[in-house]
């Protein structure tokens, strides 16, 4: 803890920390609809609205499609807006969600990642958010409830920055983070005042629909002659975001406590082998790395915090020159040579002679446990690329009767 004077201890789970970040950001409008395991986010907001802790407008909607449409339009009118959903709910809201980046609406979306039906499963994996990875928004993956709070609060600042103006996703694994109570730090009154000073008490939207002095119309039909220019503007906004993320996380680290911005490395400097992972399984991987290090193996771990924008330069810096890496995806790839995270990692390393051998793996779907022993096996397999499965597709970890690691 760098500076005790702004911190206060708060035991709580991921949903509570997400809701807390939303309140501390002085959010103006929450139009919600609940779905397990995101439910408690909206429950907390409603309860705090009753007690007066949350000052914004709360509306219970008819479904996720309504909830996200309302959030989108409220944001367009200049309200600071957040929302929370997962799994089927997210898919139901996919139509307004894809509109957010095109309309340049910095809605903050908290997702307690959950598997998609069928089979019906309420437990964690990343397959609900992966269909949205190219919807044009920024995407963070938190490793614990603390990071949900830190990144959640900064998400408002980063998304609303005039250089960016894009939706920001804060992903945290369902139940594993959303329902696991841990001891966290949150900002005290002085801290909240400081962060609100930094990010602005209210969202100031350029060309707000309610700016009566400078009225604009929006949502016009675009024919082929403007489509690519508009989408290119969205790409440029995304490319503008890394310095904004750096500024915001630096502010947080200098004033409050350390926060990871793009990646988190562990024992990578002298490592010959590395495991790449996102979200809550980073701890598991770290434990396996510790055991391997005790046995004298030169192995490290890399966690991607910012999946979009993907930290290409940092990943190249940290992984080029390694002998072999394993990329653990928490969403399947069906008929594709690589799962989403692996695609991004390989895409970052491509066309370099120092590119390591890459092994793509799929694990932990629908809340399945990735054991430390399994990660140890993966680490061991990295030393023998000749024994890997010859098929160019991700190897599935821990499937009964399935692939061997």
């Amino acid at each position, binding site marked *: 803890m760098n500076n005790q004077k702004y911190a206060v201890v708060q035991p709580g789970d991921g949903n509570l920390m997400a809701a807390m970040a939303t309140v501390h950001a002085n959010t103006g409008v929450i139009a919600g609809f609940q779905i397990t395991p995101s439910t408690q986010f909206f429950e907390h907001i409603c309860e705090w609205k009753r007690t007066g802790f949350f000052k914004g407008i709360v509306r219970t909607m008819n479904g996720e499609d309504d909830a996200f449409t309302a959030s989108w339009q409220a944001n367009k009118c200049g309200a600071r807006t957040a929302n929370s959903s997962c799994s089927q709910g997210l898919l139901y809201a996919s139509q307004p969600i894809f509109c957010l980046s*095109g*309309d*340049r*609406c910095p809605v903050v979306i908290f997702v307690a990642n959950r598997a998609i039906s069928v089979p019906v499963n309420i437990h964690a994996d990343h397959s609900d958010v992966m269909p949205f990875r190219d919807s044009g928004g920024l995407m963070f993956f938190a490793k614990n409830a603390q990071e949900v709070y830190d990144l959640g609060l900064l998400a408002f600042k980063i998304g609303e920055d005039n250089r960016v*103006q894009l939706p920001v996703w804060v992903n945290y694994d369902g139940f594993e983070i959303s329902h696991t109570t841990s001891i966290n730090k949150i900002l005290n009154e002085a801290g909240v005042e400081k962060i609100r000073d930094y990010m602005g008490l209210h969202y100031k939207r*350029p*060309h707000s629909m309610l700016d009566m002095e*400078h*009225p*604009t*119309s*929006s*949502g*016009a*039909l*675009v*024919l082929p*002659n*403007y489509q690519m*220019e*508009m989408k*290119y*503007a969205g790409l*440029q*906004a995304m490319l503008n975001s890394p310095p904004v993320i750096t500024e915001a996380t630096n502010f947080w680290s200098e004033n409050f406590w350390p926060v990871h911005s793009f990646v988190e490395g562990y024992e990578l400097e002298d490592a010959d082998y590395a495991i790449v992972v996102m979200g809550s399984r980073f701890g598991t991987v770290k434990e396996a790395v510790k055991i391997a290090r005790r046995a004298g193996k030169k192995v490290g771990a890399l966690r991607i915090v910012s999946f979009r924008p993907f930290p290409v330069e940092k990943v190249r810096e940290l992984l080029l020159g390694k002998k072999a890496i394993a990329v653990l995806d928490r969403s399947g790839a069906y008929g594709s040579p690589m799962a989403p995270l692996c695609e991004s990692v390989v895409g970052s390393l491509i066309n370099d002679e120092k590119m390591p051998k890459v092994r793509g793996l799929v694990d932990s779907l629908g809340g399945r446990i990735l054991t430390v022993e399994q990660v140890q096996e993966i680490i061991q397999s990295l030393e023998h690329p000749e024994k890997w499965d010859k098929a160019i597709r991700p190897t599935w970890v821990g499937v009964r009767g399935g692939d061997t690691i």
Partner: protein
Amino acid sequence: MNQKAAISYFDKLESNTPPVTIVWHARGNQGAVGASSNITDLVALLIGLHSMYDATSAPIFGAAKEGEPIRVYNRIGKDPIEVFYTPTKLDVIVIVDPTIARNILLQGAHKDTIYLINTDKKPEEIARELKLGPSRIVTVNATKIAKEELKTKRSHPNTAMLGALIHIFPFFTRELMAKTIENTYEEKGHTVVSTNQKSMERGYTETVEFDGREIDIPWQETVQPKLLAWYDILPGGAMPAVGNFSLNKTGTWRTERPVWDSEKCIHCLSCIPPSCPDNSIFTKLDQDGLKKFVGFDYDHCKGCGVCANICPVKAIRMISESEAKNE
């Protein structure tokens, strides 16, 4: 007719040469999409299962439907047509509605382009009006033919235009064209088939040919609209110019206009919005404070005819724009 030019086009249909491109400029509901796809039908009829030729027809639409300028592109070639982009160089420009702006009509035109124009004017007159330069121009009064033959409420000049197109593509014989029309309209009954065939025949015989080289008509390049770069577009495509919809004179989309009979009108105001979708009916309060019908906003009326349909005393009737000009 100018046989030489026609034959040169026929000769163009050879292997390893780009396909011949045709564009149809019309307004929604004038039947241009149907006419264009009839050409593909005709080529299919011509070749049967032998791949001697290939043809495609592709429409391009904007935001609105009826009345808005639309374009339909045909490609006809000897090789299989494997490209789908909008043609940028056009061999034949078919103008079903010459009231569309010249800039739109003549995009993609070059010095050998042939024009087929639906007009009641003399070819020389329309050539000067549109500044077509030294081109081959074929005109036909398809709107008049359609009105007389089809006797439909709205004007469908498409089949008469198809008849006139035979002069440009002689291998579209009248027999093939008649068969294509029969295939297209047979579900609608014998009368529709025969009237459309008659309309096509008259389109063929009432064509006027004109060679622009005979007189000195200046050619004027079309002006390309200035498009913004990505950084000049406001975030999310927000437009700072608002409340300017009235500047969009949608009245030019009209092929028919409503005419008001003040003696029959009972001022029931059934015709005002929401009946009128474009808020194009003027009303005024009289000295008793009653709202009265005053007239039409012809700058914005698209001529949809809802008011004429809904009027309980038939005080509104639709007349064609050319009729309106004569009156």
